[in-house]
């Protein structure tokens, strides 16, 4: 009896093996899984800050799915848009849930991505050989910002309308053809039906471009492999396979994330929605206190800190693009980020406090005090970047004079070895 059962199970396994080998002759299925999952080496010393890349992918999926289902009920027409949101909230089965999932998901996306970037800054993960990861990530951030901005217009509330009005006007700073560019972007002389329709189409398109960019980001990752808290290339024995060790760790992170996400989605869904946006868009009245979504606040503060249209726009765009230069601004030969570099660590914390301050300035009603704080913080923001080459060099000299920690020196043996393997000794 038992033998027969065993035999039947055995037969099933044989059948599965046959199917897999049939596929393998035509498609690199098994070798792909081996190379990218079951044998893909990941540093064993990763901490939970390394969970956020995976979480970003999860939020992307949540946004894609909830967004597609919202689009089945949404109408991109100035006369219908606001009411179609009410229709989703009141009439569509679980429409409230799907909409709150999407609006909470937008904030969750930025929260996760900002933590992901903060980790990269703290541990110096942007440094060679991961420059392309850093740059594709930066492009992803810009695409995410554009998608979020265009999505914010769709409910066609007061904040939607005036947010779009202000942001499209930023392009008016373009020299000579500013006005024409703004009219072209809007498809009209003000934000109107044409603007709403194209924003809807692009808001639907961009996530798929983001998906493509994520694939490039991951291909780059699997070429250079994950960084780790030490900032060094680890010896082979210090790597463990992604599956099952990090699938399990990522799943644990997913559960914690989903608990927090559900708390917001079910109990505080309006926390990230401006009350003013429950009033239909009115091109004749600007809300008294207009603020962007929380994830744009620091950049908004930098924009406001410059008392000149073009200057403000350049400063704001520059405040994001300047991150691209980081791999070259960090001149230290001591590997990694804050772990073994006390001065870099102090700079990191000051920079983070400065960003929070900028966020506060961005949210506050503009007064003389906030204007001064905003300017000081904006200057500090850019000076942090510009000072980094000199600070990192001086720090390295100081650290070498003081003597590097034994732990670091020991690990650097492997680092040099692995590095020359990677570059074929041409370095």
């Amino acid at each position, binding site marked *: 009896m038992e033998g027969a059962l065993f035999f039947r199970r055995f037969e099933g396994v044989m059948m599965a093996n046959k199917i897999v080998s049939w596929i393998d002759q035509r498609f690199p299925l098994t070798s792909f899984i081996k*190379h990218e999952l*079951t*044998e*893909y*080496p990941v540093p064993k010393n990763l901490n939970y800050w390394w969970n956020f890349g995976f979480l970003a992918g999860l939020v992307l999926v949540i946004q894609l*799915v909830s967004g597609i*289902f919202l689009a*089945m*009920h949404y109408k991109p027409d100035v006369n219908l848009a606001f009411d179609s949101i009410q*229709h989703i909230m*009141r*009439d*569509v*089965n*679980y*429409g409230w*849930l*799907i909409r709150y999932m999407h609006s909470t998901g937008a904030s969750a996306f930025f929260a996760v991505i900002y933590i992901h970037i903060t980790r990269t800054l703290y541990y110096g993960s942007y440094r060679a050989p991961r420059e392309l990861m850093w740059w594709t990530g930066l492009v992803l951030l810009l695409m995410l910002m554009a998608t979020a901005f265009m999505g914010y217009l769709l409910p066609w509330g007061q904040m939607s309308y005036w947010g779009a009005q202000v942001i499209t006007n930023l392009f008016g700073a373009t020299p000579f053809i500013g006005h024409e560019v703004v009219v072209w972007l809007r498809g009209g002389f003000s934000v109107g039906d044409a603007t709403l329709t194209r924003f809807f189409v692009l808001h639907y398109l961009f996530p798929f471009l983001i998906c493509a960019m994520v694939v490039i980001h991951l291909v780059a990752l699997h070429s250079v492999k994950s960084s780790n808290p030490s900032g060094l290339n680890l010896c*082979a*024995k210090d*790597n*463990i*396979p992604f*599956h*099952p*060790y990090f699938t399990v760790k990522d*799943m644990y992170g997913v559960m914690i994330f989903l608990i927090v996400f559900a708390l917001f989605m079910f109990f505080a869904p309006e926390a990230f929605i401006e009350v003013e946006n429950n009033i239909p868009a009115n091109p004749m009245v600007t809300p008294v206190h207009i603020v962007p979504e929380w994830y744009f606040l620091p950049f908004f503060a930098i924009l406001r800190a410059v008392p000149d249209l073009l200057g403000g726009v350049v400063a704001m765009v520059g405040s994001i693009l300047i991150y691209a230069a980081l791999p070259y601004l960090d001149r230290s030969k001591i590997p990694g980020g804050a772990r073994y570099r006390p001065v870099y660590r102090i700079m990191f914390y000051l920079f983070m406090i400065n960003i929070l301050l900028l966020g506060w300035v961005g949210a506050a009603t503009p007064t003389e005090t906030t204007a001064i704080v905003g300017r000081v913080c904006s200057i500090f923001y850019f000076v942090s970047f510009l000072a980094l080459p000199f600070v990192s060099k001086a720090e390295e000299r100081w650290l070498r004079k003081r003597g590097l920690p034994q732990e670091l020196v020991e690990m650097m043996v492997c680092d040099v070895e*692995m590095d020359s*393997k990677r570059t074929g000794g041409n370095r």
Partner: protein
Amino acid sequence: MSNDLIKGEEKIIGVNGEEPKNPKRRDFLVQATGVATGIGVGAAALPFIESMKPSADVMSKATTEVDIAGISKGDTRTVEWQGKPVFILHRNDAQIQAMAETPDTKDPQDDADRVKKPEWLVVIGLCTHLGCIPNRTAEGWFCPCHGSAYDDSGRILHGPAPRNLDVPRYQFVSSEKILIG
């Protein structure tokens, strides 16, 4: 690099680098995780599936009240119910007589089972083949799409349609008003 790697499949590492004492425990945990994940994903999928069902405003259009006083004997009128055409035929005595006999077709049904009052026939005006609207003819209805013919009781006579025209749920609110749905 990957050759030096500790392979997850081939070498199972326990707490002290030894083989686990009870691998079945781990198998159970893996299976339990799989089941819990499956249930979670299934539960999360439900609201999305539900959202594609008719929304509350569509459901509120479930019934249509029709004043049938204006339909003279022998005439037919088409009204809309849930976005679908409904034929209301005020049959005369000759038509009622003609329908008394049940024809030998693929969906034989007595006329009495298809009407509430013999002089009123109420059927959904969509061909049961592929949903076109049949046109009124002398003998009943004829579908222009694929040639299905129906009699004055909405019963299929010939053609590809699999069954008789559907009779919607309806009731006589008064002698001159019916409520469909």
